């Protein structure tokens, strides 16, 4: 998939179980062509992280993942000096070695602990680097990433510059909980992932729950869309649709009627107030057409 067209990328992604829409496929394609990082934003659970994983599967590259959180720093993201090993080296070679030798030696690559970013850069094989939930970190960390993202290199004061030998595909995801800096955005391609269209979501659900009959899948996606259109604190994501589909399979449900819905509703709605609202609006709607039919 390293060469080729947008359509081929899309196909390759579909081949590993990720149904990308046009923009997602195009941006993935451009990311490889232009060697630019991709910034993926969108509501929770629309498959942002999954896109990176799918890319790694489709390209046969290893996935290096950096999960961001508040207080994440260089030492955990890039590299750290192996303090203990350095001490050992000093103690072991204290008698014969000259101090200069030791000094040079303990700040060499042997004493470096590679963290995800460093790993991605130094890897001899090209990788997919996933920087997950970048919005959870603070701005300082973003600034630190800039060098990596634009030049694919890391500067270590004691060692000098380490340049990437192979170009990683970099995917950054963000839940949009914080506005990212302009500098970071400028270096990335931007992709907004949203809830999919009815047809596409149905395909996704059926891909992940192949035993689900088509009529039921359609019904499920329709109900999910109905739920999403309500004013909820946390609308159900694609991941939750899939979970729900699997639950329905386990329950052996043949149709989504009011009863099955109330029983399994907690899979897709996860706030107390939301549950009340959904039960009130959707539950009743589900009851009606059935009565009309029978």
């Amino acid at each position, binding site marked *: 998939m390293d060469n080729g067209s947008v359509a081929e990328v899309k196909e390759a992604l579909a081949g590993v179980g990720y149904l990308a829409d046009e923009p997602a496929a*195009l941006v993935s394609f451009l990311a490889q062509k232009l060697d630019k990082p991709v910034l993926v934003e969108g509501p929770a659970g629309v498959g942002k992280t999954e896109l990176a994983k799918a890319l790694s599967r489709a390209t046969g590259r290893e996935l290096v993942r950096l999960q961001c959180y508040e207080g994440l720093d260089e030492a955990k993201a890039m590299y750290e000096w192996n303090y203990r090993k350095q001490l050992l080296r000093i103690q072991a070679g204290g008698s014969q070695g000259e101090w200069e030798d030791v000094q040079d030696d303990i700040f060499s690559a042997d004493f470096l602990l590679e963290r995800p970013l460093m790993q991605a850069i130094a890897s001899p094989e090209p990788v997919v680097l996933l920087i997950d939930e970048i919005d959870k970190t603070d701005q300082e960390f973003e600034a630190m990433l800039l060098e990596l993202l634009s030049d694919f290199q890391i500067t270590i004061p004691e060692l000098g510059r380490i340049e990437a030998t192979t170009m990683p595909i970099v995917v950054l995801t963000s839940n949009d909980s914080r506005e990212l800096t*302009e500098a970071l955005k400028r270096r*990335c391609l931007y992709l907004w992932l949203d809830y999919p269209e009815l047809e596409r979501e149905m395909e996704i659900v059926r891909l992940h729950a192949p035993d689900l009959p088509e009529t039921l899948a359609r019904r499920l996606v329709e109900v999910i869309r109905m739920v999403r259109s309500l004013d909820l604190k946390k609308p159900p994501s694609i991941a939750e649709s899939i979970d729900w589909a699997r639950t329905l399979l386990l329950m052996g449900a043949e149709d989504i009627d009011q009863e099955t819905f109330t029983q399994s509703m907690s899979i897709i709605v996860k706030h*107390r107030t939301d549950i009340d609202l959904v039960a009130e609006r959707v539950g009743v709607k589900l009851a009606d057409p059935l009565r009309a039919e029978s």
Partner: protein
Amino acid sequence: MAAKLLGFCEELRGEGVAVGTSELLDAFAALSEVDWTSREDFREALAATIAKSQDDRRVFELLFERYFFRSAEAEAVQHGVTEHQEGATPAGEGERFDMSELSEAIREAMEAGDDDRMRDLARLAIAAFGRAEGSGVVGVDVQRIRRTLGLTAGQQPPNEDGSERPPIDREQLTGFERHLRRELERDLIERTETLPPSRPLAELDRALPTSPTQDLAAVHRAVSQMKRRLATLGHEQRGRKKGQMVDVRRTMRASLETGGVPLRLRYRPKRPRRPEIYVLCDVSTSVTSASVFFLSVLHALHDSFRKLRSFVFIERISEVTEVFEHERDFATIAQRISSEGGVADVSGYTDYGRVWLEFLTEISEELDPRSTVIVLGDARTNGREPHAEVFAQVAEKAGRLFWLNPEPKLYWNYGDSVMAAYERHCDGAFECWTTKHLENFVNVVAGAAPTPE
């Protein structure tokens, strides 16, 4: 083509999208990789490299349509190409359009979800109504055309021959309306040969959150950010180095790593103090429009902070901490506050002076430098004595005092607003009527630069 793209970026910049040279270079690089003949690919490639946020993307979409449509039109005029609507629909060949047939065709297109066809049909519909007859106001025209075509969402009346017609999905109808709107806008641009004045996005932005839960969720997000920042910044951090205690036990432990040499001192961890927050919220009629927003802020604050006491006031002050603690549902809270908040028995005119006096006598002993007081109100005293000196005392006793005003800064100190008298004593006074403002407030409190509006 390069010139066209540059012109497009120039327009984007005019609308406030930050398009840098590096974005432009990326755009060109991206375009050299995709197929130009596919409109979709062309647009997405541009969008991925140029529009770097949801808002930018919206502006981008609008401008993209407009810009490339217009340049196409310009070319057409230059080369003397006239537009003719050929074969757009089976019913569209004649001079007059048959309304019911057109309406049928649109229904079909909507049902099939065929975007291109809907666009063609929208143009036809506009043409059928005659461009000259338009009111000139796009929104009005859209609705008029829709009504004349007899298109409404929901169940449809049966056909003349009695056969059932499928119901129209609201989303699909909005989709068609969007096409109509776009075509009408294009028309307008063509006729007047000017771009419409900058779009009213700013107006939309101003709208108060009208209580839907998602706005509530946004408020909750902003407040949870605020919680972190209030807890880690300000007083709690002052004098951090001072008075730190070496933890001998942990230092010795750590020294084992380094062969028994205590290279690194370990300190007793400092437990961050919980911030104490007092919130006073105006619920009088002058701030009716904002009070829902304020109450949702209060609601969110209660979610995040344990040590929070909240008060509502109009003429007098009334503590509602308990209401918030015992009720989780926002709607119920709002109702309970209005019914039993204890403020319903008064004239409905705010008396800030009296509020401060009461607050001071009731609470002052509990205020200390660790406490933060947040006032949500418009500072309109209805001509009564503001008692700014009492307010100053409150401010002095409390560690920090912030004022969030639901009015734009422009209106402060006009009429009976005495904001200036209070503002002097505040650690910060902010206008606040959207979640964006709230975030801004949080940022300022955290010491960061305010986000640009």
